[in-house]
């Protein structure tokens, strides 16, 4: 997969992983992994980038005697997911067009 495309899709998948409830690093990796390859080293820069873009916020919660960071989606993150859904309709239409052309060749 094209690196730029994959980078954008990982951002979307991470936002989707925290859309319904706040989550933490390891759980986000496990949630996203069935859909797109994401490694430990990939995730944290993505989380930082999304935080800087104010698409998510972070809070530390005490868990079993240690601190665990939970990531919460913000309105800008929800807006990004909604925009992605709209963009994907256009991409699907292009995909259908391209594969139809290929079938007719």
């Amino acid at each position: 997969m094209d690196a730029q495309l994959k980078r954008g899709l990982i951002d979307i998948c991470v936002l989707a992983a925290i859309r319904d409830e706040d989550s933490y690093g390891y759980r986000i990796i496990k949630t996203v992994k069935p859909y797109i390859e994401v490694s430990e080293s990939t995730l944290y820069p993505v989380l930082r980038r999304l935080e800087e873009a104010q698409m998510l916020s972070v809070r530390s919660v005490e868990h079993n005697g240690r601190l665990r960071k939970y990531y919460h989606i913000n309105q800008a993150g929800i807006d990004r997911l909604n925009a992605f859904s709209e963009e994907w309709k256009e991409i699907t239409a292009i995909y259908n067009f391209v594969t139809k052309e290929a079938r007719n060749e």
Partner: protein
Amino acid sequence: MNKTAFINDLSDKLDRLNETDRKEYLEFFSELIDDKIEEDGVNETSAVENMQSADRIADAIIREIPVEPENVAYIEAHSVIDCTNRYRMDDGKYYFTIKLPDDVSLKDVIIEITKDYRGTRELCTNLFYLTDGDNAEFAIRLENAYGGFNYYEMTTDKFADTGMGIRLYLRYKDKYYMATDISNKSEVKGNGYWLGA
């Protein structure tokens, strides 16, 4: 390797980060290991073994960090870092030969690239990461090694129609060197002329 050793190793490999950033990254990976142990029921050694290597993690982190030359006076010294050859072929492909001391890693060299003759900056990154991901249109290969120097050939046809230029920056043995297009041993504050082709 246990968690402490892994985190210490990673900390050493992230030494170019500022203290706050490094602490944040180390906390994140420490938390990941604790969660692997807790949720997967593995011991500390297994949790660490299931992680990517500290080298790979550090590389991935560093390439995400915006790179800029430090705001210091750089010395142009051809005896340390130089662009010994640069030209554009008729087909639009550019060739730059970059000379570096053989004990310098490509990770230590910063390259700035312009996408035209006017000096419009296209990107600034570590030379090591120039060929990865978004920048895969560049190629670097070790062409020659002699006299204590490595000579790398960088090629691209990315700017076939527009012209391009580079500047190279290197902190070496606590001094700051730059390859730019002015006379030898001149001191340049911040930047110099582009090495155009």
